[in-house]
């Protein structure tokens, strides 16, 4: 009766391309987004926001709004904020950091244009919006704090109440010898940079549907977030509920990019309103609301110097980063983490012994900035690589040769950077070499020289980078934040022999569920399609960190691997009991238990599920019949698993119009063990586009009164497919030895260095004109300005 089984060779899945399991469902229009979710008796929220950037509320009149059609409730701070504990975006390990406590609606002080002041609940969003027009808020406007440098001057107006100055956080990181090195250096290269402020622009905006059941005391929050467990903790603590009373469900999420892990006033408002009304309350941000309330990213002014020896060795860097972050620090991860990473990632790929980085995080009356894909990386990489190119040019050295001379040698690990980062093993030299061949560097240089004669100005730029992935507790846990450093998985064999994995890492379209299925399938010798992966529900999956800082594959994958191996061992143990065989002589293959030595089929998984579930009486007394196992994993070796890579950009600059055509982009990347080459490449491509966007197009523009002036996709430019170059990708694989799986993160690699490579390429094209640009986005107007037009 036994069918012939194939050998285990078909069950190798790690390292193979598999299409995203959820892609078909999305293609068929069966996605389940919070934006589409409705519940009976649901109310819709809209907010009246301050049109001014700074001021005091003198009077609020909601009487007309209350009478508007469809309106159920109109809340001001007095009613709504009282059930919510205020929050402050500081962490203990950022010594001296401060931020004014926040609550849902403004209690009098206006801190940015767009701050929510009144919340309207109605039967439809349209009715809620109509009623918002009837709310009258009298605000006495005050002069806002806009410019970061001016905010730091003594006597500057204060961006928020309770402050004595506008400094959120300052720190200095230095080696003892840095001044002496600069004093004795043969060459010093210096540049000032401005990295523009931009935002995430997710396809699905922020969405929440809060449902408080006053009968059971249960709060269920359907929330388009990347960190459901973090929000379970936050909602419990800030609304004085037990953690067990709070369930957060994150179904399909239409993009997050770091933007959807911060606490927002509107989401807290939806939860508070549901608790107060006992009805489900939905808030779905429209695009303008997203522009004035989603966190913004970057916004750094950097002064940087690099000391280089006569032989072309990078000796030291000195960097001052000024980061204006809005009127308050974001919660719970703060608005200082990006600046902190900017000053720590400077010069990271290079053998550089000395360093000084100064960071000033300052308050101003704009939307808060905080963590967004590749936190700090594009700034550190942009500054370092521009200075490298300036040094190479001045010394008459080819940019590739300058990097080759200075990159950390592939055989020199472990290494600690001048800023204190510990590198287990990186592969800069191998990546540099592979890139040079892949892009046909010498051929491109020859072509560039030929075209220059014809007045066509092409530029080539390269940018090695280091990326922080797989963070342990060092990021937030040590600072007192209740943000999980571990992830957890439950893997079970169902009575019919199917496998499910419930895991704390989450899916935002990047394919997490697919790679988890691959990892589990490989341990259990199944096809990935036979593994059902469940994510994003705090009531059904174990607690964990979920999606941030590139941890899904490295930490989530390892968690799944170890959990699946536990289940494998348990299956074999039960099989041993059934077969009266030593479990060590058995193994799994193609959905069955086989003899390890001969591969002979012994027992289907379905049979084990059947016996353990329906006929445990046939097993010896005391047999552990558990076919559900749980495992939690936290990285314990290096504080982070750093990855590395190098990118290159080829551009053509029209020196008459300032327009830049992106001709080609290359990435060679080392993320350790590659679980799914297709999805890794997609992550890199998407990341590159999110790096090129702010390098050329994306910028949140403010006027001098603190008004965002381009709050629509007509005025805020996102990169479109037709502007993007082909992106060619190569890999080097250096697995981390801290885990069995060996995978590191890859989600931010593309974003980390795309802008840096592009800026070097543009400046390479501008070289004949003795002009250079050091501000992003590199708009046509800015390029024409440096060309003297």
């Amino acid at each position: 009766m036994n069918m012939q089984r194939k050998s285990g060779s078909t069950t190798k899945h790690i390292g193979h391309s598999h299409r995203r399991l959820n892609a078909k469902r999305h293609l068929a229009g069966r996605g389940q987004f919070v934006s589409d979710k409705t519940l009976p008796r649901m109310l819709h929220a809209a907010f009246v926001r301050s049109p001014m950037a700074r001021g005091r509320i003198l009077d609020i009149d909601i009487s007309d709004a209350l009478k508007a059609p469809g309106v159920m409730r109109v809340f001001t701070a007095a009613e709504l904020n009282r059930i919510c504990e205020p929050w402050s975006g500081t962490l203990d390990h950022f010594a001296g950091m401060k931020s004014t406590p926040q609550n849902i609606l403004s209690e009098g002080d206006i801190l940015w244009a767009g701050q929510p002041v009144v919340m309207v609940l109605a039967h439809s969003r349209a009715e809620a919006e109509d009623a918002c027009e009837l709310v009258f808020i009298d605000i006495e406007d005050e002069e806002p704090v806009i410019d970061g440098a001016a905010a730091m001057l003594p006597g500057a107006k204060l961006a928020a109440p309770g402050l004595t100055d506008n400094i959120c956080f300052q720190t200095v990181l230095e080696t003892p010898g840095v001044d002496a090195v600069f004093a004795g250096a043969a060459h010093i290269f210096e540049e000032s940079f401005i990295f523009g402020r931009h935002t995430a622009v997710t396809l699905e905006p922020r969405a929440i549907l809060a449902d408080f059941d006053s009968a059971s005391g249960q709060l269920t929050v359907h929330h388009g977030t990347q960190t459901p467990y973090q929000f379970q903790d936050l909602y419990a603590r800030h609304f004085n509920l037990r953690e067990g009373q709070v369930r957060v469900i994150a179904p399909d999420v239409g993009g997050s990019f770091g933007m959807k892990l911060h606490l927002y006033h509107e989401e807290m408002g939806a939860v508070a309103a549901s608790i107060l009304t006992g009805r489900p309350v939905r808030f779905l941000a429209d695009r303008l609301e997203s522009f004035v309330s989603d966190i913004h990213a970057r916004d750094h002014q950097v002064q940087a110097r690099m000391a280089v020896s006569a032989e072309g060795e990078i000796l030291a860097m000195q960097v001052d980063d000024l980061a204006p972050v809005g009127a308050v620090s974001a919660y719970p991860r703060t608005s200082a983490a990006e600046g902190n990473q900017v000053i720590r990632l400077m010069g990271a790929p290079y053998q550089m012994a000395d360093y000084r980085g100064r960071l000033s995080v300052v308050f101003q009356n704009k939307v808060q900035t905080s963590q967004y894909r590749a936190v700090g990386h594009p700034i550190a990489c942009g500054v370092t690589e521009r200075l490298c190119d300036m040094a190479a040019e001045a010394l008459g050295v080819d940019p590739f040769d300058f990097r080759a001379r200075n990159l950390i040698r592939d055989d020199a690990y472990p290494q600690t950077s001048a800023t204190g980062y510990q590198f287990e093993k990186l592969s800069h030299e191998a990546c540099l070499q592979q890139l040079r061949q892949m892009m046909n560097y010498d051929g491109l240089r020859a072509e560039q020289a030929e075209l220059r004669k014809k007045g066509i100005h092409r530029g080539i730029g390269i940018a090695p980078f280091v990326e922080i992935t797989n963070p342990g507790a060092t990021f937030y846990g040590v600072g007192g934040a209740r943000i999980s450093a571990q992830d957890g998985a439950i893997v079970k064999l169902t009575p019919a022999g199917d496998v499910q994995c419930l895991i704390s890492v989450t899916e935002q379209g990047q394919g997490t569920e697919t790679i988890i299925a691959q990892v589990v399938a490989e341990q259990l010798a199944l096809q990935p399609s036979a593994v059902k992966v469940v994510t994003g529900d705090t009531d059904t999956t174990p607690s964990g960190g979920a999606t941030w800082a590139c941890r899904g594959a490295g930490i989530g994958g390892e968690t799944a691997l170890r959990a699946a191996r536990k289940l494998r061992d348990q299956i074999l143990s039960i099989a041993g009991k059934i077969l009266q065989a030593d479990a060590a002589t058995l193994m799994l293959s193609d959905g069955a238990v086989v003899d390890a030595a001969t591969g002979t089929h012994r027992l289907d998984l379905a049979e084990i599920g059947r016996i353990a579930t329906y006929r445990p009486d046939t097993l010896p007394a005391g047999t552990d019949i558990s076919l559900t196992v749980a495992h939690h994993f936290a990285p314990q070796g290096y504080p982070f698993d750093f990855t590395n890579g190098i990118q290159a950009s080829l551009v053509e600059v029209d020196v008459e119009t300032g327009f830049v055509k992106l001709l080609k982009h290359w990435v060679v990347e080392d993320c350790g063990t590659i679980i799914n080459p297709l999805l890794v490449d997609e992550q890199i491509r998407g990341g590159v586009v999110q790096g090129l966007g702010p390098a050329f197009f994306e910028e949140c523009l403010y006027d001098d009164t603190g008004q965002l002036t381009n709050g629509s996709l007509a005025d805020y430019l996102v990169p479109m497919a037709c502007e993007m170059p082909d992106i060619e990708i190569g890999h080097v694989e250096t697995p981390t030895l801290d885990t069995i799986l060996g995978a590191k993160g890859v989600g931010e690699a593309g974003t980390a260095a795309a802008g840096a490579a592009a800026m070097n390429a543009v400046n390479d094209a501008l070289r004949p004109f003795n002009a250079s640009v050091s501000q992003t986005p590199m708009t046509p107007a800015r390029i024409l300005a440096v060309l003297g037009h």
Partner: protein
Amino acid sequence: MELDGTYTLDASPQQVWDALFDRDVLEKSIPGCTELLQISPTTFSAVVKLKIGPVSAKFKGDVELSDIVPLKSCTLAGKGNGGIAGFAKGSARITLEETPEGTTLTYTAEAAIGGKIAALGSRLVKAASRKLADEFFSKFSAVLAEISAENHIETPSESVA
């Protein structure tokens, strides 16, 4: 945002000056004005319906005339609240000069906008503001012409009397 403009009006400085302080003339001249109340000889409160780019709004605001040099110049300052559409505020210095054609009116204005209008319409605001200013002065000049036509009719009858 700064705006300026010059208009030649077919009326004497005295007629222009009087019209600038005349509630009825202003109500007919202000684009989208649905309500104008004179609170004192130099202050008005107004309700104005406007559409700038994608944003339509009803602004409630106050207008005040100050720094008055009779027949020569004055400052017109206003602040309007458009609810969730945002706010607008600004001031204009208006100067009059007698010319052979009548009167030349010059204004230099500074305006600030905020909220939804700033975020969604900033590209259009300057052009829209200029259009509104032009609309105001063309209506203003038409109303002035009406008044002087009436005066012309009245003048002969006076001479008869």
